[in-house]
């Protein structure tokens, strides 16, 4: 997700479109990205650390974005 202090022009565009469709009461919209990553075998701490590394080096830009990693079996 874009960090809270970073302007999110795409989110603003979506927020602007919602009232035109009759959806009211939306005070803010922020747009981010979601990556679904499939791994071989059991999810170990070591594998999870690798995914964290992927998120930090390529999938996100830590200068402007935050990320969270979650596991689904």
């Amino acid at each position, binding site marked *: 997700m874009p960090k809270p202090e*970073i*302007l999110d*022009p*795409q989110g*603003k565009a979506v927020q602007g479109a919602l009232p035109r469709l009759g959806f009211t009461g939306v005070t803010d919209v922020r747009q981010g990205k979601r990556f679904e990553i499939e791994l071989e075998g059991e999810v170990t701490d070591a594998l999870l650390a690798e995914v964290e590394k992927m998120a930090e080096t*390529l*999938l996100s*830009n830590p*200068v402007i974005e935050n990320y969270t990693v979650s596991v689904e079996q």
Partner: protein
Amino acid sequence: MKVGVVTFPGSLDDVDAQRAVRIGGNEAVALWHGDADLKGVDAVILPGGFSYGDYLRCGAISRFSPVMDRVVEAAHAGMPVLGICNGFQILCESHLLPGALIRNDHRKFVCRDQLLRIENNRTPWTSAYDHGQEIRIVLKNGEGGFVADAETLARIEGEGQVVARYLELNPNGSLDDIAGVSNERGNVVGLMPHPEHAVEELTGSGLDGLGFFTSLVETAFA
């Protein structure tokens, strides 16, 4: 001097940049994103365009191309590196430059002849300009909004790392009207507008961009 111009898949302004290098009095050397060496060049330009289709984030994938490993090493060793537009985005993604570039605040692509002020003429790319000189060159970008956290912004302003600033209007929402920045050492410069399109009377808005390409010669003989 030999100036390498990197072509990534999706680069657009590489040939214009090579031409500007030659008009500026230097030798242009074509580098490919897959190259594992810099072919003995003295400086590198990362040109504008949409490298790797701007997938993921502008410059995010280009940053990990083989040639960029060499460029990052050389930049840390003091080699002059200039990133224009998409090249600027690649340098920010590589963390060679502070901050990042995000979508224009008005969400539209902008293409205009833009007035700038050269704020720092002590870099190897801007030494041909006077401090405070105003130049007009083309700006064309969709994701040119320069952002950084408050602490970083205060640091680059305080250290004189702002190389150029937008005048008349802020075309993309860049903080502090920043059009270009350098690293701490000053050898790596990123610029959102395009000096390589303003080096010939026939085809550009004037000759105001030429200084970015003649500065290297002045540096070499200084």
